[in-house]
């Protein structure tokens, strides 16, 4: 369809604009349709491109030929001035009926062409798709990777409704961690002691250069000190490895936690807590009075998995009663639970009364 031939056939000269998509293919479009897109319009006016095949306007990368076709259909309909609002609305409703992948591509392409009405239309459509769905449904619809760990999803949360069942889960989780940590510590301590013993002997020999009042006694006390120090160091160093601002974080959390001890509504600052979640390795000072505050993550992965599995199991058992509500509550907030827990007189928590140490 050359312009010359068109001129012969039609009384008015219809002018066409040439557009080139990122894959190299070129197509021509009626001028008034193309001008409906602000980005194309500006290109034409500012650079004079688009009037012939050799000087086609290059469209942004996000616009592929199929999507371009859709966009041009949209423009072709809406650039006609005489249409009523009702007509336009019903066209829009029919227009956005497409699968979500295409809808996303369309949104992206419309945004790169700065076609705001279409961006609004597609955004609204996407919002309608997302609204009311559970996280799994959303992930499935949009092919989102489910790459948050179960731990991150089920973390001790800001319990929005003080639900005892979530608190139970948190407590159990924390308790499990503690137990596992104890076990690990014991293992480590045994290992350490051997090492420490040897080293201290060498130290003594090199430093003291001779006899001591009570070598064994000194050795023993030094061992103890070194044990403690080493344990502390290990704790700190493992956390430090993860995040350089650890000390500051601890302080921040501590002050946040102190507030938490007083007021149920406190939350640690968002940026710190995001670092927390990413590093997942912070130990709280035992001075803070929380039952499930001791969320220490220097467990080896196998332990962690086992723990996760157990917690997941327990969660699933709880979930079987009220799955959706659980998801809702868990997805809100995403923060570690720091405030002390007060049990209300809920009958179902009776079995777990032992968890309440206060």
């Amino acid at each position, binding site marked *: 369809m050359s312009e010359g031939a068109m001129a012969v056939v039609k009384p008015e000269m219809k002018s066409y604009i040439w557009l080139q998509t990122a894959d190299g293919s070129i197509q021509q479009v009626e001028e008034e349709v193309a001008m409906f897109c602000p980005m194309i319009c500006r290109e034409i006016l500012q650079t004079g491109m688009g009037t012939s095949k050799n000087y086609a306007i290059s469209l942004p990368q996000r616009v592929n030929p199929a999507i371009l076709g859709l966009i041009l259909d949209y423009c072709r309909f809406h650039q006609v001035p005489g249409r009523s609002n009702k007509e336009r609305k019903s066209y829009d409703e029919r227009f956005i009926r497409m699968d*979500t*992948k295409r809808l*996303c*591509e369309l*949104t*992206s392409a419309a*945004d790169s062409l700065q076609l705001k009405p279409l*961006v*609004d239309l597609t*955004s*609204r459509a*996407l*919002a*309608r798709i*997302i*609204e*009311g769905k559970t*996280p799994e449904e*959303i*992930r*499935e619809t*949009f*092919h*989102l*990777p*489910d*790459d*948050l760990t179960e731990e991150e*999803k089920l973390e001790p949360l*800001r319990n*929005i*409704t003080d639900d005892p069942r979530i608190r139970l889960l948190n407590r159990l989780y924390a308790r499990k961690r503690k137990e596992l940590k104890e076990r690990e510590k014991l293992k480590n301590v045994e290992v350490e002691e051997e090492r420490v013993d040897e080293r201290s002997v060498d130290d003594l020999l090199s430093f003291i250069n001779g006899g001591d009042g009570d070598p064994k006694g000194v050795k023993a006390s030094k061992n103890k000190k070194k044990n403690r120090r080493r344990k502390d160091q290990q704790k700190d160093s493992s956390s430090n490895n993860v995040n350089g601002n650890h000390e500051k974080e601890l302080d921040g959390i501590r002050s946040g936690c102190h507030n938490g001890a007083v007021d149920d*509504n406190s*939350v640690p*600052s*968002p*940026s710190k807590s*995001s670092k927390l979640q990413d590093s997942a390795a912070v130990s709280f000072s035992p001075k803070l009075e929380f039952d499930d505050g001791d969320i220490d993550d220097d467990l080896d992965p196998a332990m962690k998995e086992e723990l996760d599995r157990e917690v997941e199991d327990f969660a699933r058992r709880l979930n079987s009663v009220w799955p959706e*509500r659980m*998801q*809702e509550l*868990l*997805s*809100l*907030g*995403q*923060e570690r639970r720091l405030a002390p827990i007060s049990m209300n007189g809920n009958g179902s928590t009776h079995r777990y009364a032992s968890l309440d140490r206060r």
Partner: protein
Amino acid sequence: MGDVSAPDFLSDLPQSIIESILTRLPIRDAVRTSILSTRWRYKWATLTQLVFDEKCVNLSNDKTLVERNIVKFITRVLLLHKGPIHKFHLSTSYLESCPDIDQWILFLSRNDIKELILELGEGEWFRVPSCLFSCRKLTRLELFRCELDPPPSFKGFLCLKSLNLHQVLVAPDAIGSLISSCPLLESLALSYFDSLVLNIHAPNLKYLCLEGEFKDICLENTPLLVAMSVAMYMTDDIAEHFEQSSSCNFIKFLGNVPHLERLIGHIYFTKFLSIGNDLGSPPITYSHLKIIELYQVSFEDMKEILAVLRLITNSPNLQELIISGSSNTLAAIEASDLDFWEKECPLGCTFKHLQIVKMTDMSGVPHEMKFIKFLLGNSPVLQTMTITPCVYVMDGKLNMLVELVRFQRASAQAEIIFIQD
């Protein structure tokens, strides 16, 4: 588990579009997206528009529990949020005066808030903290059931374009100075005020909506006004106050609104306009006025009729006229001054653009019928005249119809539609 093989198109969209999508979701769903995947963890946290209501939390019969939950939810959202917040809209009857709201407003005042809408419950009205007055960038403020007390050092909201105060307790002189200290104000709505004396000085004002007991209103400086809607609840002592005043309300109210396009007057508005003596001031032409709606016009009061006539005869481009009557059927069967219509009514006055007329609550009293006759005879392009009789008129309908049929019509296309329900 998500399908890893299919590409994820949604998360690759630019942040501005994702925010636009999340803004269209209820806040609860938007926050829930943080559980979708690592990339979605904090996509919601930079939303600049936050809209809260009781749908954010699980409802239950325990009102205090719901209140606490709403407070917790909002506090946490605000603390997890990062970046500026341009719009904060809170509308729930579960919250009343509550210290947390003070803290939220303080937080917002530090985060470039531009639009603040607070609609709270019926009980104790919330006293707005002084930090509200330090929100420099505020462009829109809407308060429902609050107490407002601007500090003496307050110089005004220099960016405020829209102000809506509904059931707000504020010192009478403070309102006037608040309005005049917002130079960019374009839209003003005041409702449920008691005995307010108001001088509106707003050079950029375009839209005005007043509802309440106003002792006195004067549109002192509103040259750009385009549309106004006024509902005046008049008690007896206010009416008395008006009778005794010598100023002309018509001039005070409609004296300086040359660009007016739409006028809506609810109950007592025409009565308000009719009060006062106009001592021969030159007529003002409302050349842009296209739509006039006047409700509860009493066709027994000659002064009100004169006010209406004055208004419509000075609006050469009037297209649509809606009038509802409020005559007392018993008193109005005999009317005086009926010869006014033949003698004094301006002849040669044509409504060259009047196309639609709706007369509702018509009781068929003589002046009403004369008015309809006047309109029919002087509207050459009239398309429809819809007449709805008042519900109390039983037998009078036939008489009305008999009279109507006789009236001469200036417009050949005019349809008279008599509504019978």
